[in-house]
């Protein structure tokens, strides 16, 4: 392979300097002349029939401008996400505590918030459901359709009952996981600016500007070419800024349309907790069967997600969870049934891992229990059963050569000192109050949107080379902290042989590139990267040909090959720079701007039986966690995490390391600390005082290895990175706790009282 100049190097982040100096303009940092401020009026109860909404008291607030309700919607009062069940503003019924019922517009943010508190909603309380399992019961009250089921999927393969009957070893367990709040440090926010022609420009903190475009156009009843979405510097997303920013932006746009003035809507932390998307609470009953040689032969899963009051992204989150529910193993007989159940609580949606972490916690915990029952080492057991190139997944998809799972497991086993520590575990320091243990997990992750999102799985790019040789790249996928602007600039620089410093990738402007789908599913490097390569390839042809001609004109010996490296072209002792070459291209009136487009290959998955190719390619991970459990209190401290990933070619090692460390900590924080509590349909702890996330004090040691199994279709052989590091952490920690003290906790978060209770039960 030719030597790469920019891809594979830890080049500096494009946006780091503006961020460290406080100059990056996030949504709330932008000001417009004559700007007004909006605040949401929220439903106080889990399920209400709205009788009236009155601003009689609110209008006396100094600076008050107007109230916006569903009556102000000129377009369609249906937010276009997966299903059209969520109104921009409710007309008759509000379905969860915290749902936006109306908006107040005022001259200052403080006045808007004060006035919103004075808006009176007259309502009648309706019976509600807050438990997803009860929601699915036959005689439950119906709050969503005829059966409260938002969505349901299956994977059916082989003869499951027969296989379980024949199994020498069977394990079964019920597992559940609680919400996870994204806790992006920047809350949701948008500014809508009316344009003279009746259109609107929206500045939005979002992962998915084209979802915002769909929603704002629908709410205002405008053609798309009169709506422009500009992504602001986005202070974290993790899935939390996938769908819901479209709702926030639409609310700002409705206020701007009514007042004819720019309107800023920035969420406070509490309302962000109460009303924006979350990781679904999950419940699963999983059973595995193995033959007498320790070969997995059967798997049965029932998996339920608490969807909340509206569908939002639940169908596709559930589908991803369904496909991956049996784990990265060869199993001939499989039955997976999954449900997203409606409840009168906050609608849940995307969060890094997207329906996988919940079920992965269940199945990877149970794999350990099965290995214990057989009397096998859990890593040996995984090694024996895991997917390798040529094997088929539970959906019947054949795994191609870009699969390094077995090597990952081997690397983590060796680096973590697994064999020695596993043997010591449990007994180590048994006389003291603290016990150490080590736990393992292995996972896979389908990159991109897969069969369920196939119509959205495409991306565009625009590459523009100016006369001074600087390069501007527009894409449709966003930077939210993960490093997209940097990685995509590296890919553009590599393809064009342009100096990295001369390439700038812009934040998304929906009017410059075609709808490129969402920035989710670890798909940006793959999709936008390939679109950039497609755009840059004809430019590269012109640039390379012109470089050759310039070198020849300079008297270079053209019997020698031309070498393009680091922004310069050399041949037979002569050199020209990218700058000189592009100047000559412009002199020759060559086209120095191109558009690119990449659509993911087709998938063959059938929803009826869950068989076929679900995703175009998979990334893989293996994790080992070492923990120390205080036997007196049940408090667990994670000392170290060893992880290895196969995410294809690494475009920027330093950024990839940041994704890995950050993903691990988010996974660990969810596994141990994060506990969002609802009581009677009301969120009890919507703040960082009582909802605790990991700090520097909790940071474990990390040992991270990348094995780069090239993916032929990927840009410079890359796959996808963002989500993989989070998924396997919780089961590795749970397995480590079991190894340390015998306590098998089947509930995330693995709270001290749960661990303590298990320890007590074992003693008695």
């Amino acid at each position: 392979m030719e030597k790469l100049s920019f891809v594979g190097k830890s080049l500096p982040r494009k946006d780091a300097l503006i961020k460290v100096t406080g100059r990056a303009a996030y949504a709330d940092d932008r000001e417009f002349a004559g700007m007004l401020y909006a605040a949401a009026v929220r439903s106080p109860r889990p399920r209400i029939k709205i009788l009236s909404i009155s601003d009689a008291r609110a209008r006396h607030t100094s600076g008050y401008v107007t109230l916006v309700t569903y009556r102000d919607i000129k377009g369609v009062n249906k937010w276009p996400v997966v299903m059209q069940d969520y109104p921009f503003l409710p007309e008759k019924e509000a379905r969860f505590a915290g749902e936006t019922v109306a908006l107040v517009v005022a001259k200052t943010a403080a006045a808007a918030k004060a006035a919103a508190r004075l808006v009176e909603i007259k309502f009648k309380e309706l019976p509600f459901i807050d438990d997803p399992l009860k929601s699915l019961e036959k005689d439950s009250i119906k709050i969503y359709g005829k059966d409260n089921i938002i969505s349901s999927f299956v994977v059916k393969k082989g003869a499951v009952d027969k296989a379980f009957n024949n199994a020498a070893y069977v394990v079964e367990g019920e597992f559940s996981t609680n919400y996870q709040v994204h806790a992006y440090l920047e809350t949701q926010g948008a500014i809508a600016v009316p344009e003279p022609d009746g259109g609107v420009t929206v500045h939005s903190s979002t992962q998915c500007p084209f979802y915002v475009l769909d929603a704002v156009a629908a709410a205002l009843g405008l053609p798309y070419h009169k709506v422009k979405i500009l992504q602001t510097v986005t202070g974290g997303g993790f899935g939390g800024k996938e769908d819901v920013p479209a709702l926030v932006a639409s609310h700002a746009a409705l206020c701007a349309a009514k007042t004819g003035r720019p309107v800023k809507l920035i969420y406070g932390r509490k309302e962000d907790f109460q009303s924006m998307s979350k990781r679904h609470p999950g419940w699963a009953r999983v059973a595995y069967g193995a033959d007498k040689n320790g070969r997995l032969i059967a798997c049965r899963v029932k998996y339920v997600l608490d969807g909340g009051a509206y569908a939002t992204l639940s169908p596709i989150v559930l589908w991803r969870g369904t496909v991956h529910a049996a784990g990265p193993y060869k199993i001939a007989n499989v039955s997976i049934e999954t449900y997203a159940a409606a409840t009168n609580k906050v609608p849940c949606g995307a969060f890094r891992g997207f329906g996988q972490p919940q079920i992965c916690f269940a199945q990877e915990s149970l794999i350990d229990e099965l290995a214990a029952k057989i009397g096998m080492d859990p890593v040996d057991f995984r090694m024996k059963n895991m997917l390798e190139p040529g094997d088929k997944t539970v959906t019947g998809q054949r795994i191609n050569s870009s699969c390094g799972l077995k090597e990952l497991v081997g690397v983590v086993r060796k680096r973590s000192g697994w064999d020695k520590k596993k043997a010591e575990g449990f007994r180590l320091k048994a006389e003291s109050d603290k016990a150490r243990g080590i736990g393992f997990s292995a996972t896979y992750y389908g990159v991109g949107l897969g069969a369920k999102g196939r119509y959205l799985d495409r991306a565009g790019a625009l590459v523009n080379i100016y006369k001074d040789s600087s390069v501007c790249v527009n894409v449709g996928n966003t930077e939210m902290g993960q490093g997209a602007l940097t990685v995509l600039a590296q890919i553009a620089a590599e393809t064009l042989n342009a100096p990295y410093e001369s390439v700038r990738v812009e934040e998304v402007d929906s009017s410059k590139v075609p709808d490129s789908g969402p920035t989710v599913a670890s798909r940006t490097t793959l999709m936008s990267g390939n679109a950039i390569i497609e755009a840059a390839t004809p430019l590269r042809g012109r640039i390379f040909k012109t470089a050759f001609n310039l070198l020849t004109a300079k008297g270079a010996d053209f019997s020698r090959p031309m070498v393009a490296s680091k922004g310069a072209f050399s041949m037979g002792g002569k050199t020209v720079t990218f700058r000189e070459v592009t100047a000559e291209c412009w002199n020759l009136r060559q086209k120095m701007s191109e558009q690119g487009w990449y659509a993911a290959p087709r998938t063959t998955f059938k929803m009826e039986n869950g068989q076929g190719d679900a995703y175009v390619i998979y990334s893989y991970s293996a994790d080992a966690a070492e923990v120390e459990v205080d036997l007196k209190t049940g408090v667990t401290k994670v000392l170290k995490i060893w992880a290895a990933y196969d995410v294809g070619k690494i475009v920027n090692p330093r950024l990839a390391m940041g994704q890995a460390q950050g993903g691990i900590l988010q996974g660990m924080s969810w596994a141990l600390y994060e506990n969002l509590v609802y009581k009677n349909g009301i969120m009890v702890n919507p703040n960082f005082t009582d909802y605790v996330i990991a700090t520097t004090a909790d940071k474990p040691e990390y040992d991270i290895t990348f094995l780069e199994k090239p993916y032929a279709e990927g840009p410079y052989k890359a796959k996808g990175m963002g989500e993989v590091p989070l998924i396997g952490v919780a089961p590795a920690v749970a397995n480590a706790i079991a190894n340390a003290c015998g306590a098998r906790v089947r509930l995330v978060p693995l709270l001290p009282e749960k661990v303590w209770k298990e320890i007590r039960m074992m003693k008695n």
Partner: protein
Amino acid sequence: MKKNNILEVKNGVFEITLTINGEKLVLSTKNGESLLDALRRWGLKGVKKGCDTGDCGSCTVIVNGTPVLGCLVPAVAAHDGDIITIEGLGTVQKPHPIQKAFVEAGAVQCGFCIPGMILSSKHLLDRMPNPSEAEIRKALDGNLCRCTGYVKQIEAVKMAAKRLR
């Protein structure tokens, strides 16, 4: 009318004198306005609002040499004070050594927590030129970051400490 040596120009509006990033200013603030909201209103947008309840550390500024959560302090309390915000450290063209270290260590992802994190780091390094890892962790444990896993920020502080010594 003067209350505690602060001029009340009209009902509930106070005129306060303070130094921000080396510049002496006379500014007005309303009764009950937090220092965070006031600083942002005065144009210092590098001071970030992450929670408004004193939990996340995004609004950390240095007042009279001490890191303070701007959301918990009324602006009037900063009267006669000397305030340093992220804007006072360095610029894109000429970043402060701590800012430079954060860039080079790869300590920045979404960036929203970074101004507060850098100011907490500055306060640490002003007091302790050679902090241990435990001391760095302690100094930064009031600054939440959801992106990085913290390891690169700790490395950045170590890198900056070395260069500043």
